[in-house]
């Protein structure tokens, strides 16, 4: 029924804003707004599809009706086109000057079996800038060809129904994936796995709705038993359970897509900025012996064992009369509240020398760093904190070992690492701990059910979940309102991937029931 264009406009815009805001920034849908006017279908587009800069092989793609002409005159294939989807080694010439530009592979993808659904060709040529420029120029001189706008190939593919919206989003992520784990997740989404999951649910919901509708429209005169509704009850319950599971992913997929927020917090002069600099291996933050050097948030992006991390250094937490520093502390606390993982850095030298007293001191200290409204126990349990005892080089060996033992003995502590940013001691162990924390936060993109990757999907899924509750609430009171719940659920899911019409529901009704009177 019921999928309507403004929904798509909404999605379109949502995709946009997400893309514009999200990391990494994505150019690939960014020309959709208002562009289509004046852009005729008959045009054939071409572009360099591989990365810019010097490289071994470059790929130039063209899509549209004139592709075949371009291939013929540039690859010297005057008679026949090569067999579809087969590599052919040809001299590539400029059709006007007849000058040989390069020797490379050409591919012919006739419609509709191509990425865009249109006739397409690919030239795999040598990656030097001069070769690329020459080939692009030659293509531009073929009648009916013009350079593609950013994202135009994908848009044509979406239009031709080759990709659904989640696949388009996945492809965008794949192109812009910066870490290995991001790439794996995006590839999974692009191959339609997330789309398949939602389509599977959509299909189940359609069936639920069809059975409820059959019961409403036909049960009085036809042979549709009450058992039909019991079946629907079971399906709805199962679906709710599945969705709940899917929603309870702790935002792992979204985190992997946009980076894990890791915040360094602690008292002034504990070595927070030094830690940041050590981790990113460059002096990103100013370091000085003066307490309160860092006032604002300093951010840097890191790749921790394949997972994207956004590391923020914050102002040291202390009461201050300085207006600027007070604002810095406020921002630091805000960051800690939003963080996926907080690294609490403590200067070892400030610890009481007695190990037991030191543990008590640390507990107190952690409490002061914590977001105010949260209970320490729940936060530690959720693996959202790492405790870093910095400047171990200033501690006598014996005292350090005692401290280490004591902290391992006391329960209720987050994982503890003893490090020295000065000598890099303990840093490798810390990185291992950090890696496993980040991995837990993102989940393994290759195992288990596909995860939610976008806030947009989450919002629609939550609506869908809530709508199913309406079915249950009205099931015995008013079937019209119960059906409305399933219909709403279907609409919400449809907003993620595609449309559902009344005719589809009727098709299922007539397939499943003998309606006849």
């Amino acid at each position, binding site marked *: 029924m019921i999928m309507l264009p403004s*929904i798509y406009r909404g999605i379109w815009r949502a995709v946009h804003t997400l893309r514009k805001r999200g990391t990494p920034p994505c150019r690939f849908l960014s020309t959709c707004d208002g562009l289509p006017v004046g852009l005729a279908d008959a045009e054939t587009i071409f572009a360099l599809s591989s990365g810019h800069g010097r490289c071994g092989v470059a790929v130039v793609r063209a899509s549209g009706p004139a592709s075949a002409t371009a291939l013929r005159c540039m690859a010297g294939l005057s008679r026949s086109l090569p067999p579809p989807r087969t590599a052919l080694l040809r001299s590539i010439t400029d059709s006007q000057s007849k000058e040989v530009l390069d020797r490379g592979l050409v591919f012919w993808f006739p419609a509709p079996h191509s990425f865009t659904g249109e006739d397409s060709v690919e030239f795999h040529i040598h990656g030097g800038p001069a070769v690329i420029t020459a080939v692009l120029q030659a293509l531009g001189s073929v009648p009916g060809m013009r350079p593609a706008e950013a994202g135009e190939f994908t848009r044509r593919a979406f*239009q031709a129904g080759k990709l659904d919206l989640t696949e388009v989003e996945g492809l965008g992520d794949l192109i812009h994936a910066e870490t290995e784990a991001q790439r794996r997740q995006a590839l999974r989404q692009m191959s339609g796995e997330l789309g398949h999951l939602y389509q599977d649910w959509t299909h189940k919901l359609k069936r639920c709705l069809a059975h409820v509708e059959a019961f409403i*429209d036909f049960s009085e005169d036809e042979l549709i038993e009450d058992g039909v509704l019991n079946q629907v009850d079971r399906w709805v319950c199962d679906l709710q359970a599945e969705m709940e599971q899917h929603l309870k992913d702790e935002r792992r997929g979204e985190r992997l897509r946009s980076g894990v927020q890791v915040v360094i917090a602690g008292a002034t002069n504990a070595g927070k900025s030094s830690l940041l600099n050590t981790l990113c291996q460059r002096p990103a933050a100013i370091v000085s012996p003066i307490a309160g050097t860092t006032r604002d948030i300093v951010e840097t992006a890191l790749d921790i064992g394949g997972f994207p991390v956004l590391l923020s250094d914050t102002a040291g937490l202390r009461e201050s009369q300085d207006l600027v520093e007070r604002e810095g502390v406020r921002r630091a606390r805000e960051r800690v509240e939003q963080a996926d993982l907080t690294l609490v850095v403590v200067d070892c030298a400030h610890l009481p020398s007695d190990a037991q007293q030191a543990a008590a001191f640390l507990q107190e200290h952690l409490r002061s760093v914590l977001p105010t409204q949260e209970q320490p126990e729940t936060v530690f349990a959720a693996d959202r904190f790492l405790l870093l005892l910095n400047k171990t080089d200033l501690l006598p060996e014996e005292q350090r070992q005692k401290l280490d033992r004591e902290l391992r003995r006391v329960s209720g502590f987050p994982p503890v690492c003893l490090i020295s940013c000065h000598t890099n001691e303990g840093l490798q162990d810390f990185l291992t701990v950090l890696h496993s924390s980040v991995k837990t936060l993102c989940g393994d993109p290759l195992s288990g059910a596909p995860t939610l990757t976008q806030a947009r999907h989450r919002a629609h899924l939550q609506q869908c979940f809530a709508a199913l509750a309406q079915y249950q609430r009205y099931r015995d009171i008013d079937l*019209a309102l119960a059906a409305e719940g399933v219909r709403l659920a279907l609409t919400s899911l449809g907003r993620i991937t595609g*449309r559902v019409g009344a005719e589809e*529901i009727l098709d299922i*009704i007539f397939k499943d029931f*003998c*309606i*006849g009177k």
Partner: protein
Amino acid sequence: MLTKKLPPLNSFLSLVSRRASHVTRQQYDVIVVGGGHAGTEAAAAAARVGAKTLLVSQKIQTIGALSCNPSLGGVGKGQLVREVDALDGLCGRAGDWAGIHFSILNRSKGPAVWGPRAQLDRQRYREFIQSELLSTPRLTVLEGSVEELLVSETNPEQPGHHRVTGILLANGSHPVSASSVILTTGTFLSGSLFIGQSTSPGGRIGDAPSSSGLSHTLKERLGLRVGRLRTGTPPRILRDSVDFSLAVVQPPDGHPTPFSFLNTRTHCKPEEQLPCHLTYTTPGVERVVKDSLHLNCHIQEDAKGPRYCPSIESRVLRFPGRRHQVWLEPEGLTSDLLYPQGLSMTMPPDVQLSLIRQIPALHRAKIHTHGYGVQYDFVCPTQLSPALQVKNTQGLFLAGQINGTTGYEEAAAQGLWAGVNAARCALSMPTVSLSRTESYIGVLIDDLVSRGVTEPYRMFTSRAEFRTALRPDNADMRLTLKGFEEVGCVSTLRYQEAVRVRDSLQDAQATLQALSLSSNSWKKQLPDIQISEVKNTVMTGMEVLQYNNVSFEMLASAFPESLSRHMEFSQRLKIEAVYRPHCNLQKKEIERIQKEENLLLPHDMDYLSLPVSMSQEVREILDRVRPSTLGAATRLQGITPAAIVHLLNYVRSAELRERRKHRKQQKEEREEELCAAKASLP
């Protein structure tokens, strides 16, 4: 309304024939061809709007005849009857007059999907319709067969390639001219009848086939695309020959609910109502069907039949090994015939008899008339505008089965709307349309003209997205006021009644809304009700009425001074209270759809060369269907969301360009004036 006496039928006939002699010299505003459910509603509606109207029917006696099942309404269909009645149509009141067994289907499933339904007395129904037509001012009825449509030059100010100017009657008489012609020829367009292996031309047993001239004009001259559909009717059985002891009695409702908003009771007294009976098919039925397949050419043809009202042959073939229901329905108070609902069949007569005798209650049944199948042409309804006018032909309107629908109610709804628009066209008023957000009629017409049909189209409640707002109880509030104020097809009497109802309902709701008490006080007032609010919140009467087992009567007895005067509307108030929150939630969606429906796509848009990025397939669909609004375009099959976005952008920017051009022109004109003024200065 029900107290009036019907005039005797013979006076009707004499009046008609008297008029017939001078009919042909007249100029009419609207001519309606066909006297079935679509034709009678169309003629009456056109006359109500103010058009001088002529109804032409092959046989006067069959005007208002129920050609198939003797019943009206049902789930989805009942909603249509209520809406036709709210627009002052005939079928609701005719149903109340002729009904002999009333029941509300889906009683336990929520008021939005209640299906008011009645078994009818065929004779009474026909008599009521004929008497109504007779007493309708500006309406003339003529017995005759239409040979040809008169087609002439177009009016260049309007879109279209042809213009219809009247009809040519058979037997060589003069042409009759009119500004609008409505065709409601049912199954008669190239119709053929099937029994066993024999076929004959015709649209209904006992009636002459219609002229091939009409069908030729539509296809060849006007170039309309047609498709072929099939339907069928069961044999009629002699009541005396049925063994009712082997069937289950299905009693009517104790208190019959009238269809019409004008009636508080039905013509038939509750105790006079007749029961229906339910029986089942046996494996023997399946065997007979399978053994006689080679003798059954209707079932072998590939014309599309309905999936929901299939013949007994297709039922047992598609779902073998099952028991299928057969309803035995009375044909009238005094009729000695029964209508076996579910036994539509087309096998040879002797096989029909052996088949029905396989059914327990019919083991010694006798057949009065045999069942048969009909195949007929329909005009693909995507060629119509939402006013049901043929897009390429000025003045030509189509309604009923000719548009690929099935069912009396669907036909009546289209007939009424085609009649309204044909009259408005003839009287030089703009056409009107109903949105799918405000009525089932709107859903029906939008589905037809923007999606087309692949099988006979029947209304279901699931077709209406805003079912919770389009209820049988509020059809008058949705349509009667609009019907009077904007459309002009509703009488003053009915309008005044609707205004009274609206004011009382508003008053009662305001009173309920103002009645706000703490939940503790409500608990004291209604001790039996579980008021779920834990905290001591304030609740209005409207909110309390939403509770599942709170009725308006309970509230009225707790607050008699303020509420008892609204007892007349207790049920409507209860329904309104339950549904209103949900309807409010849908409002945004409704507004959005209405906005899209208001975004008109130019009639002459050249989709094939539109300078926007759109696939050839999408272009071809849009070019073929030519949706009249963006909303209609979104509901087309095969139109991608991206295409809609591009179309929207194009239309918007075209509007913008137009406005800019206009502004530029104005500016230039002003400058010219200024120049001229300057030049004229000394």
